[in-house]
């Protein structure tokens, strides 16, 4: 009898060693035989309705025809599975994703997917510390139902596969080919004091500037670093080694 737990733990160990997103997709494809899925897909959720899926798709193991259809018709914005990801923290089967009978767009996604080999599926929602939402999906072309142990194993595998994908994507996008962000000496100084826990007012006293000026430096630094607030600006500044 196949030991699902041991197989899942071994796979998780291997995921940590994989050098690229391509190898991650290949490893997951191979795992399908063991855990009883034919296809998988990992994607971040678009934050706005006008965004396309490509920007967010992380690792794809969907059939090409389904992926292009899903992308071209913007299914990500009407798919009840995607909607449920935002509302829950636990894995669910696709037939547990509710939608109104008169919601024709949602009904269309659900009725078309079996024609592309996605007959039953399970999705694991991911909600990261930084507020990023993603889903890791497994599907089968057979009308099987994974038993509780296999679902638990897929849950763990999804968590680790997502974490590894994020690491690999971050390593790739942090590569030095990206034009470096240039911060002024004053911006760096203000960020450094912010990192040390000082308020804008305290920094204005330390640097003998007006509080307004300090706030301005922190705002311009945040814009350059692509950060939404002061805490994230400091985080990005540390990550890019503008401050220690």
């Amino acid at each position, binding site marked *: 009898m196949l030991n*699902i*737990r041991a197989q*899942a*733990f071994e796979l*998780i160990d291997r995921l940590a060693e994989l050098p690229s997103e391509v190898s991650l997709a290949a490893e997951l494809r191979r795992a399908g035989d063991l855990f009883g899925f034919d296809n998988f897909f990992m994607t971040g959720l678009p934050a706005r309705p006008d965004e396309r899926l490509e920007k967010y798709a992380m690792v794809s193991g969907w059939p090409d025809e389904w992926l292009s259809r899903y992308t071209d018709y913007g299914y990500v914005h009407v798919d009840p599975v995607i909607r449920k990801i935002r509302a829950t*923290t*636990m894995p669910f089967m696709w037939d547990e994703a509710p939608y109104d009978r008169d919601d024709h767009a949602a009904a269309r996604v659900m009725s078309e997917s079996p024609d592309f080999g996605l007959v039953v599926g399970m999705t694991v929602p*991911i*909600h*990261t*510390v*930084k*507020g990023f939402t993603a889903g890791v999906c497994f599907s089968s072309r057979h009308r099987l139902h994974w038993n509780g*142990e296999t679902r*638990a*194993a897929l*849950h*763990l595998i999804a*968590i*680790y596969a*997502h*974490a590894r994908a*994020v690491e690999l994507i971050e390593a790739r996008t942090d590569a030095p080919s990206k034009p470096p962000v240039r911060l002024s000496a004053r911006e760096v100084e203000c960020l450094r004091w*912010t*990192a*040390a*826990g000082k308020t804008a007012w305290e920094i204005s006293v330390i640097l003998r500037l007006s509080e307004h000026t300090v706030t301005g430096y922190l705002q311009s630094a945040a814009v350059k670093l692509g950060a*939404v*607030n002061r*805490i*994230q*600006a*400091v*985080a*990005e*500044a*540390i*990550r890019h080694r503008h*401050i*220690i």
Partner: protein
Amino acid sequence: MLLLIDCHNHHRHGALLEKAYRFRHRHFVDRLKWEALRKPDGREIDQFDGPDCVHVIGVENDEVASYVRLLPTTRPHLQSHVYPEILQGAQAPTGPGIYEWTRGSVDPNKRDGSTGIDRTTAGFWLGVAEAAEHLGLDGLLVQSHPMMMGRILELGWQVKPLALPTTYDGAPIVSYYAGMSPKTLPKLRATFGISHPLLVIEDRAPAAPGAPTRPRYPS
């Protein structure tokens, strides 16, 4: 302020620990409905709350804003004595270098749900790692909702599952070991944008009556 309370200073902090027990009751019983922990006096306190356990308490405006309890695994702890069945037959690691991470909680009113990188949440996560470093630990034994496991992994801990996710008392739970690596604290600091230590570790010498306590780090 983020304060570590252990066998060296718990006698000085009776009032704060009282607040912490009430905070735990509000969070775990009133908010999360862990009815097994309900106490008539509103203080969530159990047999593990002794001089050997370590509390990491985030204090804001004199009130508890976040809380974590670390239990030595060389003594009875939750995975050994409360719900060993969540391990589903596996053996959890124990030893002087491993503490069990329990009762982790952040006041939801302090939390910024959209980014999750507010100061209170940052203090909660950094407090655990700084406490583990101070205690010289190799890692922590954890049981939590599987979503938390993903976050702990994301935050630079070396996470090894000990069992598959299951349910305990109706709630999803998974058991794992979170090892500290040289990358753990730098990753946490970079994520939250806090470059300096937050955790206040007081002098071990007993305080003279009325004497102010001296934190290890300037606040």
